[in-house]
C-alpha cells in the first residue's frame, strides 16, 4: 500500500502554472528520484508535500488518510521530514545539538527543566551508528566533512517516526567520496522502511540509489518508471524535451 498518494495535484501562482495535474504514489521503503530542469515544478511539488504551499487543486493522502497541511510543522507531525539543500545546520553547535535543534530533550519537573545533554548525546550516537556514519555527537559541526554534515541532517529526520524523507539536492557541492557516503545514508533510511524522495540533478546518483524515477517538465509529470526499465539517455531526453513522453 502506498504511504503517500497524490491525485491530480495542480498549483498555480497567478497566471503561472507551476505544477499541472500530477498524480503519483510512493510505497514505504522506496527511493524515488525526482528529476527535471530548473523551473520544471519539482520544488513546488515537494514544497506542497512539505507544507510550504497548499495545492490549488487535487488531493494528497498519507497512509490512506487525506492530508491537508497549513505549515511545515504540521508536515513534520505527520511524519514527513525534509533535508534542506543547505542542510540547515548551525556550525557553532555540536552534532547532537543540531540533531535535536527545536526538539531538545529536557529533564526535571514542571517549569524547572534543564537540557538533558546525556540523553541527547546517547540517542544521537545511536542514530549515527544506525546510519553507519563516523560522526561524533560531541563534535562541532564546523569541523565536519560534507558527508558527516549530511549524516547530522539525516539523523534529524530519524528522531521521530518519519514515514517520508524529502531530500533536496543532497549530493550537490560535495566530494565524490562523500557522495557515496550520502547514497549509503539513503539506503539505510530505505532499509528501515522509510520512503525517500530524492530531488537531484545528478543522473548517476539517481540511477545508483533510486528504485523509480519521476521526471517533470514544465509542470507536468512526463515519466514515472522503474529505474531498471529506463536509461540515463532516456531520462536526459525527457528532461530536455527531446523525448516528449516516456514510453
Amino acid at each position, binding site marked *: 500500500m502506498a504511504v503517500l498518494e497524490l491525485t491530480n495535484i495542480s498549483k498555480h501562482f497567478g497566471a503561472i502554472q507551476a505544477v499541472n495535474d500530477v498524480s503519483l504514489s510512493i510505497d514505504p521503503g522506496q527511493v524515488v528520484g525526482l528529476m527535471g530542469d530548473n523551473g520544471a515544478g519539482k520544488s513546488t511539488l515537494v514544497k506542497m508535500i512539505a507544507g510550504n504551499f497548499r495545492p490549488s487543486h487535487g488531493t494528497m493522502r498519507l497512509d490512506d488518510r487525506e492530508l491537508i497541511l497549513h505549515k511545515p510543522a504540521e508536515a*513534520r507531525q505527520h511524519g514527513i521530514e525534509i533535508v534542506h539543500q543547505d542542510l*540547515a*545546520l548551525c*556550525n557553532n*553547535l555540536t552534532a547532537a545539538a543540531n540533531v535535536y535543534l527545536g*526538539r531538545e530533550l529536557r529533564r526535571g519537573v514542571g517549569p524547572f527543566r534543564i*537540557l538533558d545533554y546525556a540523553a541527547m548525546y546517547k540517542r544521537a*550516537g545511536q542514530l549515527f551508528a544506525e546510519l553507519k556514519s*563516523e560522526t*561524533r555527537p560531541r563534535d562541532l559541526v564546523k569541523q565536519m566533512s560534507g558527508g558527516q554534515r549530511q549524516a547530522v541532517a539525516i539523523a534529524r529526520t530519524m528522531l521521530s517516526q518519519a514515514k517520508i524523507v524529502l531530500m533536496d539536492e543532497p549530493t550537490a557541492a560535495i566530494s565524490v567520496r562523500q557522495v557515496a557516503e550520502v547514497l549509503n545514508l539513503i539506503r539505510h533510511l530505505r532499509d528501515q522502511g522509510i520512503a525517500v524522495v530524492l530531488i537531484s540533478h545528478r543522473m548517476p546518483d539517481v540511477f545508483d540509489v533510486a528504485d523509480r524515477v519521476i521526471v517533470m517538465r514544465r509542470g507536468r509529470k512526463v515519466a514515472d518508471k522503474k529505474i531498471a526499465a529506463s536509461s540515463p539517455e532516456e531520462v536526459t531526453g525527457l528532461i530536455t524535451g527531446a523525448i516528449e513522453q516516456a514510453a
Partner: protein
Amino acid sequence: MAVTLDQTIAQKQHTFLSRMFSSQTFWVVIAVILACIFLSFATDAFATSKNLYNITRNVTFVAIVALGMTFVIITGGIDLSVGSVLCLSSMVLAVTMHAGYSIEIGILASILTALAIGAFNGVLIAYLGFPPFVVTLGMLSIARSLAMVASNNTVVFQFGPDHQKLLALGGGAWVFGIANPVLYMIILALITGFILRWTKFGRHIFAIGGNEHAATLTGVPVKQIKVAVYMISALSAGIAGIIQTGWLGAVTTNLGTGMELQVIAATVIGGANLAGGVGTAFGAIVGAALIEVIRNSLGLLGINAFWQGTFIGGAILMAVLFDRIRNFRRSD
C-alpha cells in the same frame, strides 16, 4: 586492533584541558592574574584591601551590562543603547523616589522602563527587520534625551523617604564585607551562565547566532527570542542603573555616557564573537575585569590617564588577535 564504529562515535575528541587551553577566555584570565601579580610587586597600593574593594566594585557596572549584552551578541546582534538605557532607568528611579514614592515603586518603574525600551528595540529588529545597529543607535539618542526630559537636566540627589535604603542597596556590603554590587554581579553571572548552558532558550540563542535560517527551518521561535534578548540587555542596563544610583547617591544625565563601547569591549575581550554564535557569562565578567585592572594599574603606575584608551584598545585587539591566530592554524 580494529576500531569499531561505536568506539569512534563514543570517542571524545576534546578533553577538558584541551578545551580550556583553546579558549580565549582562559588566556584573558591568565592575563588578568599575571597583571595582578605584577602590580602587587610593582606598586604598594595595588594589593591593599581598599584598592581591591574599589576594583571589584568598579568592575560590576560594566560587567552586569556585559552579561545582558552577551545574550544579544550571541544572537549576532548588537545593543548600542545600553549606556543611555542605564541613565534613563537611573533617572526614572531617582525622579520617582524624589517625588515621595517608596523604593519598591521606584525600582518597579525603573525596571518596567528598561523592559519597555528593550521590547521596542526587539520588535523593530525581529518583526520589522530593522538592522540592530540602527535601531539601538536611535535608542541611544532617544533614551538619553528622555532622561533629560524626565529630570529637566538637573542632578537628582535626594531620593525621598527611602533615601537611606537606596544608598544601602548600592553602597553597602551586607555579606563578609564584599561590596553589594559585586554580590549582584556574581548572582546575575550565575543566572546568565545557567540560562546559556542549561536551558532550551539558551540553546536557541546560540542556534540563532550560528545560523538564523536553520533555526527558523527547525522550528525555533526566532522572532520571540530576539525580542527577549533585547529585553534582557535593557534589563541588565536597568539593574546596573539602579545599583549605580544607590552607590553614587546622585544621578546626572551624563551617567553611562560611552558605556556601550566599554561593555562591548568587555564581551569581545572575554571571547564573544560579534558575528554571533559564541559567548559566555564568565567571559563577560573576565573581560570587564581586564579593562578595570588596566585602568587601575595605569593610575597606580603613574602613567598619564590619557593613555587609558590606547591600552584598552590594545587589549581588545590582542584578544581578537589570539582568536585569529587559532583560526589560522585550524584552517591550515
